[in-house]
């Protein structure tokens, strides 16, 4: 029995390699089965089903009945729909930029290795870690209670605090504040982004005599712009989805002043079982989100620098 020559070994290896790549083709579908099932059933199939439902009248008990575009006609004449659009847009337009600015400012403040910086970062991040939970929303609700600590502090300095959640003007503000309070996750992304900016950019700018403020606006912000953009897009999408906080804090009141879109969608689907109507609402939501993010992507080429 002679040892196999190099050529034999090589040919055997290349055979194995060839069979490996064709075998791996089949194996790939095996590995992807769970995901493909989910995609076909829970995502793609569900999307198509939503589109179908939007043209039907369906209450879960009887069969869906085809009614053409009637749902969409009714939605356009539904005052609650327009209220929810207005409320949601006001919220998105205020809370997304406010949260972005807060996270950028605080990240800038925390981007210095001073003593105890890890503790500051962790504690400031804490609200965004737990702030989305029901428990914290409940605390927030009592924080802004008529007799809650916010009003007690205002009273102590001689101000008369409003009935925060009972007043249409201030109720949405409390929900905005709850969101802005959770700027920590964007802040963490910005902090990671600061680390990726090459140090030599600042060194040469310093040699050229650029002030720290100038460096911030001409190096830091442009270099961070892809991350700012990412946070802007994700923040916009998730703001459209706001539900839990509203459900706990105001449940749409007072006088529909916090009737957020998804809350209205939830009521139509799961309180009145207007499944067809709600499906139409969810398609409109998807279109609104697509248009808004599409618009953001269009603006991106004017201010997002991908290759500095």
């Amino acid at each position: 029995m002679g040892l196999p020559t190099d050529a034999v070994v090589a040919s055997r290896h290349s055979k194995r390699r060839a069979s490996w790549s064709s075998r791996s083709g089949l194996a790939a579908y095996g590995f992807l089965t769970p995901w493909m099932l989910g995609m076909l059933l829970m995502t793609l199939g569900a999307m198509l089903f939503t589109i179908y439902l939007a043209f039907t009248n369906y209450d879960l008990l009887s069969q869906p009945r085809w009614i053409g575009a009637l749902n969409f006609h009714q939605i356009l004449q539904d005052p609650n729909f327009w209220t929810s659009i207005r409320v949601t847009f006001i919220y998105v337009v205020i809370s997304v930029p406010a949260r972005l600015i807060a996270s950028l400012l605080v990240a800038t403040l925390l981007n210095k290795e001073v003593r105890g910086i890890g503790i500051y970062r962790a504690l400031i991040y804490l609200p965004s870690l737990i702030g989305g939970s029901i428990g914290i929303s409940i605390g927030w609700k009592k924080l802004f209670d008529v007799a809650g600590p916010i009003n007690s502090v205002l009273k102590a300095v001689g101000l008369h605090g409003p009935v925060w959640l009972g007043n249409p003007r201030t109720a949405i503000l409390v929900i905005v504040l709850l969101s802005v309070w959770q700027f920590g996750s964007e802040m963490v992304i910005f902090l990671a982004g600061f680390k990726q900016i090459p140090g030599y950019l600042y060194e040469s700018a310093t040699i050229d005599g650029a002030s720290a403020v100038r460096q911030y606006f001409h190096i830091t912000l442009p270099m961070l712009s892809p991350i700012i953009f990412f946070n802007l897009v994700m923040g916009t999408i998730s703001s459209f989805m706001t539900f839990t906080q509203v459900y706990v804090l105001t449940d749409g009141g007072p006088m529909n002043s916090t009737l957020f879109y998804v809350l209205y969608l939830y009521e139509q689907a799961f309180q009145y079982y207007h499944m067809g109507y709600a499906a139409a609402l969810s398609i409109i939501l998807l279109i609104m989100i697509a248009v808004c993010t599409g618009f953001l992507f269009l603006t991106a080429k004017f201010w997002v620098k991908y290759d500095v």
Partner: protein
Amino acid sequence: MVKSRPVTRSVIRHVVLIVLTFLMIYPILWMFFSSLKPDSEIFSTTQLLPSTWTFQHYLDGFSGAAGMNFGPMFLHSFEIAAVVVIGSLFSASLSGFAFARLNFAPRKFLFGFMLGTMMLPAQVVMIPQYIMFHRVGLVNTFVPLMLPSFLGTTPFFIYLMVQFIRGIPKDLDEAAVMDGCSTFRLFRSIILPLTKPALITISIFSFYWTWDDFFGQLIYLNNPQLNTVSIGLSMFLANMGQTQWGDLFAMSIVSVIPVLVIFIICQRYLVEGIATQGLKG
């Protein structure tokens, strides 16, 4: 003095940071200390610390004295979250491996499609999903909350896995394949053990998102026997008397403890996961 300026600046920086940090965590501190105050004291004083400390609210919440027993609810929430963690690890590791390492014709297309679904808001598909689970009689069970995780419905986890596996040197695979290693063994014995950090990150996020989930539990669970912590807290808020804020705060605080504990233990993985989202996304 020239020398004192950096010191002054550093003091100012610390003062600003301390004030900011205190403002940020004040709501949580207020809630925490309120849960340790007698009910009469919660809204009658501006003092943060209780003048009399009491653990009664915590005992009430778990003994049913508050009108609801939160013990089983915590178990339910844990049960759902644990299964979802397993499901997420299962689907993300399998599909992540396939996308990162295996050659098949529509790989690029499917991967692009997967990334596209990352932006798809869950609320858009929840109505048909609800109807499907309703038709097969699975509403009022935990299945609708658990099953999707096994089917890779959180594309972010798959993406995280793909990114991580791409960072593992390919020499390893080639050597293993030459030694006659099957594709599954390559996955199971060589790649999977190396992805531990990514698996931990996925576990943390899937646990958090399930533990904090409210919408899904609200629509799928209508049976008091199946209440989770989120549902229990919101029902308690809706039905309680004016004197039970202490109990409610106590249970709210307990509800965030698992999240805090995981944060303290796994901070590094968590921060890396969040950063991945923004830097490579």
